[in-house]
């Protein structure tokens, strides 16, 4: 059980590291800035 939990934990940690690397990759800056604006431009007249 301990090994199972440890391996699972390491898998999740690797996933988290991947997320962090992707999110901090400078090439994604423009896209993320545009995504952040989605709520501000979501209705035709009064969005």
């Amino acid at each position: 059980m301990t090994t199972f939990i440890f391996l699972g934990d390491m898998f999740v940690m690797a996933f988290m590291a991947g997320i962090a690397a992707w999110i901090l990759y400078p090439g994604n800056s423009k896209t993320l800035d545009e995504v952040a604006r989605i709520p501000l431009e979501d209705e035709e007249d009064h969005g």
Partner: protein
Amino acid sequence: MEAVSNKVYHDTVVIRLIQFSVIWALLAMLGGVWLAAELIWPGLDFGQYWLSFGRLRPLHTNGVIFGFGVSALMATAFYSVQRTSHVPLFLPRLAWFCCYAWQLVVLLGGLSLLAGYNTSKEYAELEWPFDIAIAIVWVCFGVVFFGTIAMRRIRPIYISNWFYGALIIVIAMLHIVNSLALPVGLIQSYSLFAGAQDAMVQWWYGHNAVGFLLTGGFLGMLYYFLPKHAGRPIWSYRLSVLAFWAFVYSYIWAGPHHLHYNSVPEWVQSLGMVMSVVLLAPSWATMVNGIMTVSTAWEKLRTDPALKFIVLSLAFYGLATFEGPMMSIRSVNVVSHFTDWTIGHVHSGALGWNAMITYGTFYFMAPRLVGRELYSSRLANLHFWLALAGTMLYIVAMWAAGVSQGLLWLSVDDIGELSFDFKDIMASMVPYYILRLVAGLIFLAGTFLMAYNLYMTVRGRPALRAVPPAVAPAFGVSR
């Protein structure tokens, strides 16, 4: 019921869910005030079983969480998912089914609690027929939500939808597993789990119901309505994505901190404690992100009651998510557990975070849904101060009561015997309980003001026919 259209956002169902949510808030909070009074004057049950504390208390919690909270989450999820996907709701008639079926489940389930049918699992008290009905409505909720996302006209899935999605998926998983039971009658059953396993499954459910419903779902609300209302994008979208995954990863482990000094393995207790402390990071990441988002829009706080509620809810979110990890540390928990400190902690989250962000969101949505100004900003401002005063008085009273109880219960004399009688300790709590009752009345009065204000705002007005904008090229998806 509005005509099904391929272009117009389906907002009438959102208005109806807001109305149900407000009705449940009034009823369930009235129940809470009555319970607070019963703790001072036990005779208020008038010898009636259905008015006893044991039956009214689950009615209060179920009414607030599932009636008020889930109706608000459905309303805001339906409102925001269409807008962030640039398409109307998928299967709008199914959304109407979710709306009415959910109210029926909460109503009949509440009546069953008053009649004494109770599984004895906290926040999962309803018996098996209601559990099945909840699962069906919840799956329908998921079909409408994820169907809308699948039909979206812009490629990215905005962060609020990730939180709402986690709410739907994880609550379905928790509810179904924790409710597994052997029926032995029309409204009676026995859990499939027994002993320590039952306790561990129950608090895996119980803590994550708090985590993914009362935290994750409401964070979805925050990430959509805060930038929307402040008129600025979220301060760091990167931080919001990191906070989401860290939140999902760490919360699911934290349940065993409810079972400290119990008959579950010590390593399980330690794991729950450590992951609870780790949770501080994603929680405060969101709080900082929210505060920084409004940091360039402080001037709006002077005049806008809706934004005041949302920003104040962030402060209470930060407070509650600091206090929770501290209380999960075993050496603190030995004082806090089974005392009113826990009640104060729960209400700093429930009143300060959940209710306040919901109130702010309702004040924001209602005028926009019907294309009319809020009926009275003065009443909304008065509501804000009543809500703040009620919440502060409540949690300070319960902190004082809880810390006193914990320390007095642990006091021993020179030969190791308890210094104080349990009955005497509880009798000395009455002044704090009176303060709590006053706090509850103040908070409830504010909620009545909001109900009147929102009623006057939407009275006699149909939902505005809001439509998606032209798709921005950067996000366009060819369909």
